[in-house]
């Protein structure tokens, strides 16, 4: 799975800028393969067995105990699936890209390689390495193919995340040093019982570091700006997958390795998460740029994820991971539909748009679906996730839980406001002539919706998978 | 003449020389003068070596050898420095260090 994007990347390097179709085809194939593998893994994973499967291991630096050690379990299988879907649809979405196509797909694939790596690695060193690989191409992607205020956004985003890594490195190394095992292998480190101080410090560092990428309040400001600036597929990947890296890392590294630290800081996590949820929707209410709106909704939804993590209960973690997945797909859908409209109209100001259901019913149908999903309407994947998270939260942190639930009203208002102003009312004559989504371009969106609805109707397929990992995970803590 | 039979004397002498040299380097504006001050620093070092060698080194020759080496090196240094100074003079029509202020920040 790691290899397929790399292969595609290599092939792309050889191709000429002129052969646009070939380039796209190759990257599509690469993405397709990884998607296929992801699905395969998801299906072939033996739930009854549980634990780590499809393990590959290879010593890299014996002196420092660094090893390439990947595997699949209930936690990352959904993430892999998510990544596969999003990259595949993302490539399809960017089919129309004309400028510097080759470089674009090269960087995209590089990014995806990193993402897969992070999700699968069980070696902190490789984990961090892939993490950075996933983060850095963002800068170039936004800067070259981005839109509004891209220089500022790209620089801000990159520096923000790098500052995050500035916290992560000491955190990781602290654990490495404190263990005295001279290994970066998480499974091995998990066995070690670190002193409370180390755990607290390391957890805080890691949480802050990764939290930046998870857009935990108040480290979220990069995300709306970044989303706005980034080109469609990048926004999809970024909001859909990259932000999950953050939360996933908090789960996989921080919570996994320093449970005591987690219990010590859980209150803080929950607090920040709640603030993020409420804050996100309220700020989103005031936005007029479609992508800003979505950006802030992501802030709010990622808040839900963190809240779920903070509870540290089976339900909470199930919900949280499920929410990562659902939100990933949902946001991808959001951005892809917005991207489509933006490519046509070259505006994202919701007051300028309007009546789009008349002009391009399909495109707006996509957006509306996403919006409803964001508002937590049942029958969509995210509903279940939020249900689980909230129930778990009310049990552990009643106040935060109730606040978060209350935020749902505003969330609904928030989503509907956008839908109404953008897609209902009388159409703006300026855009009347635009044609609707072609079936081919509609395909990726359809895939996304299908995923949302499928897991909305059969949540057990997902939760069952996640549970296999979560329960031992919590017992380990 | 007991004073001359004490290590300290020579050390202090060297220290003073060193200080003078340092001061010269920092205070004088003429490149030549600065160069001379540097030589003073080197000489201070040589005196130290000699003194130490004379008073408490097991192997009598070492200090002198070192000093010889230092002289040679100093000579080379002087040569190179002078050549560069000449170049400076050609370019800036002056050997005042304060006129070389292109590079900053």
């Amino acid at each position: 799975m790691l290899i397929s994007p790399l292969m595609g990347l290599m092939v792309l390097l050889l191709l000429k800028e002129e052969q646009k179709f070939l380039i796209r085809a190759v990257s599509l194939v690469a993405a397709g393969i990884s998607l296929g593998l992801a699905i395969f893994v998801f299906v072939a994973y033996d739930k009854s067995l549980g634990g780590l499967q499809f393990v590959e291991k290879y010593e890299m630096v014996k002196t420092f105990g660094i090893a390439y050690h990947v595997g699949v379990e209930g936690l990352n299988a959904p993430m892999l699936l998510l990544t596969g879907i999003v990259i595949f649809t993302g490539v399809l979405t960017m089919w129309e890209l004309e400028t510097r196509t080759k470089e674009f797909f090269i960087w995209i694939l590089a990014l995806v390689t990193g993402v897969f790596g992070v999700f699968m690695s069980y070696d902190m060193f490789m984990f961090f390495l892939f993490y950075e690989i996933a983060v850095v191409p963002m800068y170039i992607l936004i800067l070259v193919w981005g839109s509004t205020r891209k220089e500022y956004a790209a620089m801000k985003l990159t520096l923000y995340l790098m500052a995050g890594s500035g916290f992560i490195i000491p955190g990781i190394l602290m654990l490495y040093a404190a263990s005295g095992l001279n290994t970066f292998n998480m499974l091995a480190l998990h066995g070690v019982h670190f002193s409370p101080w180390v755990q607290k410090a390391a957890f805080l560092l890691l949480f802050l570091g990764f939290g930046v990428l998870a857009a935990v309040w108040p480290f979220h400001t990069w995300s709306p700006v970044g989303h706005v600036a980034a080109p469609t597929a990048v926004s999809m990947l970024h909001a859909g997958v990259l932000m999950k890296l953050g939360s996933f890392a908090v789960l996989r590294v921080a919570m996994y390795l320093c449970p005591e630290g987690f219990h010590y800081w859980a209150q803080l996590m929950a607090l920040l998460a709640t603030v993020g949820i409420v804050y996100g929707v309220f700020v989103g209410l005031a936005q007029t740029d479609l992508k800003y709106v979505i950006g802030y909704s992501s802030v709010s939804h990622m808040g839900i994820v963190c809240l779920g993590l903070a509870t540290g209960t089976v339900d909470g973690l199930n919900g949280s991971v499920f929410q990562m997945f659902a939100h990933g797909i949902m946001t991808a859908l959001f951005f892809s539909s917005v991207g489509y409209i933006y490519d046509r109209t070259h505006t994202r100001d919701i007051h300028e748009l309007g009546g789009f259901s008349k002009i391009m019913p399909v495109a707006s149908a996509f957006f509306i679906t996403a919006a409803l999903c964001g508002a937590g309407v049942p029958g969509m994947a995210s509903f279940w996730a939020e249900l689980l998270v909230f129930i778990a939260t009310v049990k552990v942190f009643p106040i935060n839980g109730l606040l978060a639930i209350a935020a749902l009203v505003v969330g609904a208002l928030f989503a509907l406001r956008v839908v109404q102003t953008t897609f209902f009312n009388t159409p703006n004559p300026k855009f009347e002539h635009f044609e609707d989504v072609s079936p081919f371009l509609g395909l990726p969106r359809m895939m996304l919706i299908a995923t949302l609805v499928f897991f909305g109707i059969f949540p057990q397929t997902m939760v069952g998978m996640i549970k296999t990992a979560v329960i031992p995970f919590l017992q380990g803590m | 003449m007991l004073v001359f039979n004490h290590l300290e004397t020579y050390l202090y002498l060297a220290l003073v020389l060193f200080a003078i040299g340092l001061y010269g380097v920092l205070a004088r504006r003429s490149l030549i003068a600065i160069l001379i001050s540097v030589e003073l620093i080197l000489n201070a070092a040589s005196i130290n070596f000699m003194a130490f060698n004379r008073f408490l080194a097991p192997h009598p020759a070492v200090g002198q050898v070192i000093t010889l080496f230092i002289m040679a090196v100093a000579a080379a240094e002087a040569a190179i420095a002078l050549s560069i100074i000449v170049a400076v003079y050609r370019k800036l029509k002056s050997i005042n260090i304060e006129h070389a202020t292109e590079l900053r920040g």
Partner: protein
Amino acid sequence: MNVMLFGPELYYLGAALVFFFLTLKRKPEPKADYQIAMALGLGGLLVTGLCLCQHGELFFKAYRVDLFSQIFKFALALGFFLVLTICHNLPQIAERDQAEFYLFLTTTTIGMMLLVSSVELLTIYVALELSSYSLYILVPLRRGDGIDVEAGIKYLLIGAVSSGVMLFGLSYLFGATGSTYLADILPKLPQLASSPIGLLGLLLALAGFFFKLSVFPFHFWAPDVYQGAANQVTTFIATASKAAAVALLLRLAILGAGYGYSFTKALVILSIISMTLGNLVAIIQRDFKRLLAYSSIAHAGYFLIGILTLKEAGYIAAIYYALAYLVMNFTVFMVINEVAKDGRDLKIQELAGLWRRSPLLSLSLIVGLFALAGVPPSIGFTGKLLLFTSAMSQGYFWLVLIGAVNGTISLYYYLRVIYCSYFTDDPNLGPITISTPIRFLNYALIAIVLGFGVFPDRIVELAKAAVKTVL
């Protein structure tokens, strides 16, 4: 005595002679000179490669040949050769001086080679001076508007002073221990560190080495020289001489093993200051080489991290990073040389539209800069992480934290450069043609920077062995 032990040095001595004769010719033939130089450089690489596994002692134990020294000699030879590869046109150096240019390049290489394997104060001093003086001459060799001589004189002054100071310090060390052999001196260091005279000696002695490494506060020469010297010379200073300095410090540290707490603390402070200062000042630079000068100051701080851990892991990391730094820094400078064909100082803005003018160069630039910034999957990232790891396992938490944050700061100005090269465009700048060897050089460098970044095992094992031989 076994010639092979002294092989590289002898070889380069011969090379120096050859160049010396070339300087004597009536009418200069730059092309021929260049070809000879390339040939000799390649040969040197081979010789040092062959002598890699030598070990023994020469000149009354004043000169020690072991894997450690040989690795660095190889690195030096590599640096020398690499610099030669980008000397195919020396617009900044008068044609009749070019032979001398090669001559002094060779001599300074010799000096550094001596430096890395000398274990006796006087030898160290002489070797140091040999390498420095050649550089003093190389810097103002550039034809130009006077900033070269200014850089040269400043370099000379600061260098002379710090070497004088070092010498003074060495004299105290000699006095305090009565010996000039590191092997005798360093065991005595612990009690030296308690006696004021020894302490002073040690401190002053370190001045010289720090000067070479351009550690704060001995960094003042770096920006001016980097900017003032010809690009090729700067390249050499930035790559090879750094490696040599690291080697020397490592040897001191390795033999030293225990400086006492307060001393390491002083080192920690110095390293923190130099990396922070270097990075902060680099942010506002306009001239690319000057920017790199400040980044080199910052990197000096990183090197110190590895050294001051005084543990095997730290030394390994330092060696690894020194080699890495040589390669990645060279990558960047190579790009500079290619972009500034006429050898001018490159403003960052002048990189505009590089992605269009020469995609390959822009790619190598990105790779090199990201490597310097410590972004994976690059040799720089791995090296930095190893350094931090070693420091962390010694409990230097804050050092690591600051180092990591510094990484972020540095990323800012590297990104600014990338931004200029990749995203701004200047229509009236034509495409850049690069010769086939350079093209392959590019490929090779990128491959090395990325490859050894992901699979650092070989290098690490090598470094480990080297450290073992010295311990």
